[in-house]
């Protein structure tokens, strides 16, 4: 969490191995990202990391279920069917699995995107403003769903947002300003986050 230009996205890109570091280390599990070459970074992203983008970023030519299993297809792995079924059940799109992204609403597309991130059982999921393009109801659905993934499926999720309501769904909020971590709140409420945010303006 942090105001524009605070370095939220840059930090996340570094954590996810999408951007190069000038100094320091990024560890995912036991792996030091800074020591990996492009090929191994790709494999790491494929196997250990999940992504949810603000703009959904589904492949328009594939159906919902094909998008969900795409990371496994890319890895040449067989999908873990019971797990995929559980993910599909959780995102609540069982009846729309054979639709193309263009036939789904924004909220549904984002649910597919979350499903895609979950399906590969990554160690960590990075979500970059996942509710940024959604209306508040769809946004609430996604956030609710992501929290269930954490609670019920034991998934770690790192989410970048500047919406205090979205932040309130998290277990822990870290505040950034001018590229540095300046504060954190455990078990936040929307009001607490909003109050903290207000102090950045001054």
């Amino acid at each position, binding site marked *: 969490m942090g105001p524009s230009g605070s370095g939220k996205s840059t930090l996340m890109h570094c954590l996810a191995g*999408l951007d190069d570091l000038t100094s320091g280390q990024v560890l995912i599990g036991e792996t030091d990202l800074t020591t990996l070459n492009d090929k191994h970074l*790709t494999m790491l*992203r*494929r196997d250990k990391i999940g992504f949810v*983008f603000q*703009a959904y970023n589904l492949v328009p030519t*594939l159906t919902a279920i*094909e998008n969900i299993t795409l990371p496994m297809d*890319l*890895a040449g792995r067989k999908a873990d069917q019971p797990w995929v079924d559980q993910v599909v059940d959780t995102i609540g799109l069982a009846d729309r699995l054979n639709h193309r992204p263009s036939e789904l609403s924004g909220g549904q597309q984002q649910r597919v995107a979350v499903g895609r991130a979950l399906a590969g059982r990554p160690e960590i999921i990075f979500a970059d403003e996942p509710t940024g393009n959604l209306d508040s109801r769809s946004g609430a659905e996604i956030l609710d769903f992501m929290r269930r993934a954490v609670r019920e499926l034991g998934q770690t999720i790192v989410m970048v947002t500047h919406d205090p309501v979205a932040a309130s769904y998290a277990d822990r909020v870290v505040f950034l300003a001018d590229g540095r971590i300046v504060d954190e709140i455990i078990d936040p409420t929307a009001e607490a986050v909003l109050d903290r945010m207000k102090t950045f303006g001054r």
Partner: protein
Amino acid sequence: MFKLTYKGLWAHKLRFVLTGLAVVLGVAFMAGTMILTDTMGRTFDGLFDTANKGVDVVVRRAATVDGGFAGTAVRERVDSATLARIKGIDGVDTAVGSITGMATLVGPDGKASTSGMGGTMGTNWVDDARLNPFAIATGRAPQTPDEVVLDQSTVTKDGRKLGDPVTVLAKGDPRTLTLVGTATFGDADGIPGSTLIATTDATAQVLFAEPGAYDSVVIASDGRQDPEALSARVGAALGTERFETLTGAADTANNKADLKEELGFFSTFLLAFAYISLFVGMFIIYNTFSIVVAQRSKEMAMLRAIGASRRQVVKSVLFESITVGLLASAVGLGVGVLMSFGLRALLGAVGLDIPGGSVVITPTTIVTAFLVGSVVTVLSALAPALRASKVKPIAALRDVAVDNSGASLRRTITGMIITGAGVTAFAAGVIGSGSGALAMLGVGAVITIVGVFVLGPVIARPVMGGLGIPIAWLSGTTGRLAAENAKRCPKRTSATASALMIGVALVSFITILATSTRVGFGHGREVAAGRLRDRFRRHGRRRPQPHAGRRGGQAAAGGSRLAGPHHTGRHRHRLQPGRRREHVDDRAAVRPEGDRGQDHRRHRPLRRRQGGQGR
């Protein structure tokens, strides 16, 4: 990943079809050309086999090199006394003199009739069926000096009847003969694309050769020795310094080889077209794939972000291009078959009638079509694919895709080197002479185009800066915006400009080629007429001029080889300016002034006729 590629292809059918279209056209032209050439080759091979089937040995005068015509052999004729001697040689069953000369038939409408690629051939009718590939279909063979036999197809085409007068233009004044019979050639109604005029020996000698002489003597063996042995025996009896003997089989092989050479120009000509269309197709494919890949760079970056390797991204584009290449090649091959008919009709329309026969599609044609089609497509797609794989995954997370500017130092240097090499080759071609220089010129031009294409993004910005000033001055803010826009994406600007460049180059190429062909045809016609005059004046024969070394019995073969001076020779002159000069000089040098008036009159119908076809 393949599923992804395949689904992507299917989802963008129109894009797929448009990309493939460029390949289809290139491949079709090439396949069509190859099919046409193969078909022609096989037809003519068949003709020669038919023509020579009963001939065991051919006797003609030894070649003598004629000073006026560099490297060209001129043959004397064989006189009747020699023929009588040959008949007496042991092992010779039948020997007949054979005459083949150029002639023109006056059509029923009173004008010189147009004949096809093979031209019109005057010959003596040989009664021995073994030595004459023609057979009487209706009526009878010529028996008196005023009788003539024509091939069945000409008679049918002109609507002539037995007993009709037939006017023939050859040596001397026009002769009017009486049609007494029609002849067929093997299974055909005549030699495809060629007209036969056959008379008695005496008439043929007067019209097409000279009294008491034959162009060659053809021999049928009595079967007691093989053709090689008989050929050697006849050679020994006549003396090899004055006479040349060869077996019928060897003569057929020679004829086939000569014809291949004559057809060679033709396939080169058409294949050049095919390669140019492929070259243009390659630019179109390259541009198409560049645009397609650029459009999808965000999707590719996203795929990279969720775990697609660089390899997988490249593979997906390559797989797409291979699919496009293979499918388009298959379609192109099919279109090429149709195109070979079209080309045949087109050539027929300009006076190059190509004999019919079934279409020959060799494995070489199929393999070449597929290989060239897919390799060109894959190569065109390779660079954009590699570029696509370099898209940073992070681009997917940003809204604006990164515009990688085109003006890199490497591009500048590469472009400079290629353009420099092209201009150098071009200059060398302009300064030099001969066919090597011409080839250099062409290669240089192509390399220069490639160089400018590479340099495009580098020069786009400064060029637009210069062009932008008057545009901004003329149309204010709109103009300034337009100029700035063109400068902003130099790669896009140069891609558009390159497409236009290729288009203009292509149009200029075709226009110049058409004009040159027309002028070349005209020139070739004069050269051909000149050669005709030489030939009639000297009663000489030369190889590899098509009417050289003919045997009357093999009139058929001679007829088809008449293609040489009429057509192929013409193209050679155009393609090799160095030789053209020689021919012109030769004509001027060897033709006595006194002959000119008569020759001019005699050959005018022929020339006028061809002029009409060429223009």
